[in-house]
């Protein structure tokens, strides 16, 4: 009896609940159904990979605006893009695309937007939702935090409302196949699929000229290194500044005064700072042998740590570990003129016999050099900062300009592999200079031929294309 009653009440109860639910929700359902049926959804959603994007992460979405821009008291205010990756759920993006008001009676407009943050080889689908909201109220999308209602005259009245969303059908994807070689472009082929699969752009063809130049230079370097390994002598011209390092260290030892080593105002990421550390190692080995104090005030904490390690190893190699004083290599400050003031104070108080400035310097170069000159120290500078070279040349006894600083480590060690790289560098410079000469002649020819007969103009355009191929891309 009871089980029969249960059998009867179970289905009846669910049917009754469903009827009540339908009656309660029917206004909403009818409203939603009505909104969708009234031509308020965007149509014709198409997505293609962005042709101007090399990173392979952007796509362009386009769709037709809904035919109905105003429905009851709701206006079309914006669009929202929904994205589905690898057949997952559609997720609404938080960027809104503002809807431009169309003239009354005009055909539905075409709207487009860009989507970024996409990944290669993932499959994407998009939907576009038209957002309808009262224009005299502050509105926001689902998932956004509720905005504050501005106050004052003319401000919207009432609390913020959710915008009503009407979703489109899923997008179709356009796939473009394009092959580009320098200035020439093969016409594109477009086909449409249901899903967008982002292409992977792993190589930037515009930088092929840079790659070829790097490979050529690397081959020259390797050839010279193998040439050096065969035991052949490599001549390097004397560099006065590097030759004077020994004299400076000897002078400091005789006078019983310390050597001041300033490794520039740049960090370890700068090649000139690494070169300065290399030279510091050589200088430290000599000062260890003579037990001459070596002061290294540092601008960067990491440079200080590296300098300590290098000097400590140099003292160990020289067999004088007890002579190493960690407190002589210290961090001062990372503010430019505060550092300069501190180093100037060290120069005036400690009166070093030799000041070595190796690395990258800014406006403080002359202040350092002039203060050092006033104390009577011998000064050797080496920098690749072209704006400060004139000041060092003026105020210092010796100056290593630009690449002479990089050559210092090879010059001091006389290792065949390092010397070979110097020769490769010189050959590279020669090639670049030759290319510059040829390029200047070619550019002049283009500007002259452009106003000549047609065959000369043709030649000019060919030369111009060649120059464009060789010019570095962004």
């Amino acid at each position, binding site marked *: 009896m009871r089980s029969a009653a249960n059998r009867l009440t179970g289905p009846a109860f669910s049917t009754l609940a469903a009827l009540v639910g339908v009656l309660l929700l029917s206004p909403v359902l009818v409203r939603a159904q009505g909104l969708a049926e009234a031509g308020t959804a965007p149509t014709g959603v198409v997505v293609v990979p962005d042709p101007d994007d090399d990173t392979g992460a952007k796509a362009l979405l386009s769709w037709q605006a809904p035919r109905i821009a105003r429905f009851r008291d709701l206006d079309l205010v914006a669009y929202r893009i929904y994205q589905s990756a690898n057949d997952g759920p559609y997720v609404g993006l938080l960027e809104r695309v503002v809807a431009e008001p169309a003239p009354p009676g005009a055909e539905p407009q075409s709207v487009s937007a860009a989507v970024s943050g996409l990944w290669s080889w993932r499959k994407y689908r998009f939907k576009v939702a038209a957002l309808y909201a009262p224009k005299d109220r502050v509105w926001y999308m689902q998932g956004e935090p509720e905005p504050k209602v501005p106050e004052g005259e003319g401000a919207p009245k009432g609390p913020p409302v959710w915008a009503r969303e009407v979703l489109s059908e899923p997008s179709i994807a356009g796939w473009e196949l394009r092959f580009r070689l320098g200035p020439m472009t093969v016409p594109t082929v477009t086909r449409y699929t249901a899903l967008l699969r982002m292409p992977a752009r792993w190589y930037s063809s515009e930088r092929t000229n840079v790659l070829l130049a790097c490979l050529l230079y690397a081959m020259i370097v390797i050839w010279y290194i193998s040439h050096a390994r065969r035991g052949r002598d490599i001549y390097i011209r004397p560099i006065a500044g590097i030759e004077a390092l020994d004299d400076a260290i000897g002078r400091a030892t005789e006078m019983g005064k310390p050597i001041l080593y300033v490794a520039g105002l740049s960090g370890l990421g700068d090649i000139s700072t690494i070169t300065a550390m290399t030279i510091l190692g050589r200088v430290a080995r000599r000062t260890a042998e003579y037990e001459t104090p070596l002061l290294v005030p540092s601008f960067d904490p990491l440079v200080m740590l590296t300098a300590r390690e290098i000097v400590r190893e140099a003292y160990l190699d020289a067999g004088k570990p007890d002579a190493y004083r960690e407190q002589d290599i*210290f961090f001062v400050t990372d503010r430019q003129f505060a550092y300069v003031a501190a180093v100037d104070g060290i120069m005036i108080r400690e009166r070093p016999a030799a000041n070595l400035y190796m690395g990258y310097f800014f406006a403080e170069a002359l202040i350092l*050099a002039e203060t050092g000159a006033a104390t009577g120290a011998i000064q050797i500078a080496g920098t690749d900062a072209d704006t400060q070279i004139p000041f060092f040349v003026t105020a210092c006894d010796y100056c290593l300009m630009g690449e002479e600083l990089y050559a210092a480590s090879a010059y001091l060690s006389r290792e065949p592999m390092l010397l070979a790289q110097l020769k490769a560098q010189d050959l590279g410079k020669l090639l*670049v200079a030759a290319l510059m000469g040829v390029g200047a002649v070619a550019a002049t020819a283009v500007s002259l031929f452009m106003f000549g007969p047609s065959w000369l103009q043709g030649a000019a355009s060919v030369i111009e294309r060649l120059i464009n191929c060789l010019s570095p891309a962004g």
Partner: protein
Amino acid sequence: MKVRIPLAITFITAAVLIAIFFTPHHLGEQIQARISDWLRVVGGLGLVLGIYSLLQTHLRKVARRSRDWGFSLVAVVSFAIMAVLGIGWGIGQGTSFNWVFNNVYAPLDATMFSLLAFFVASAAYRTFRARTVEAALLLTAAIVVMFGRVPLGEMIFPKAPDVAEWIMAYPTTAAKRAILLGVTLGSVAMSLRIMLGIERSHLGGE
């Protein structure tokens, strides 16, 4: 092992960064951004060690009453004041930290910078002597450029600014570019040496 691991890290990181230069894929951008974040973290940790070194140096001098220990005391007290002000009340606009920075540090900074004017004059006075042909050329060019840059020069010789501009635009720029060319190739070669482990003095030892 002490040298091999840093060399391996150097080579791998350099190879990845070079590959990223030729790769437009946004994965490369993300890797580069992540490496930059790591550099900032390492730099921040390095700053902690730097501050430790700074305080250790100056506190030792104060404790031992070494020569000129007063300057070290000023450095330590200044550090403490700024640290307390910054941590306690923030470093934004209107805070005491900001006031001290703008009214104490900034004028001192500007004072040091202004020394450049006097040092340029003294360096020029000492250096511009016509002892050799090159020095005479340098002196002549410097005089012409200085003449062309001041209103008095234009009053005396109306073409002086044009001549000065020509000297700066052509011979000077050519020399600067020549130096830059050498610097660029030199830095590429140096980078190659460091990347391949040929140059390892910066790691300590040969």
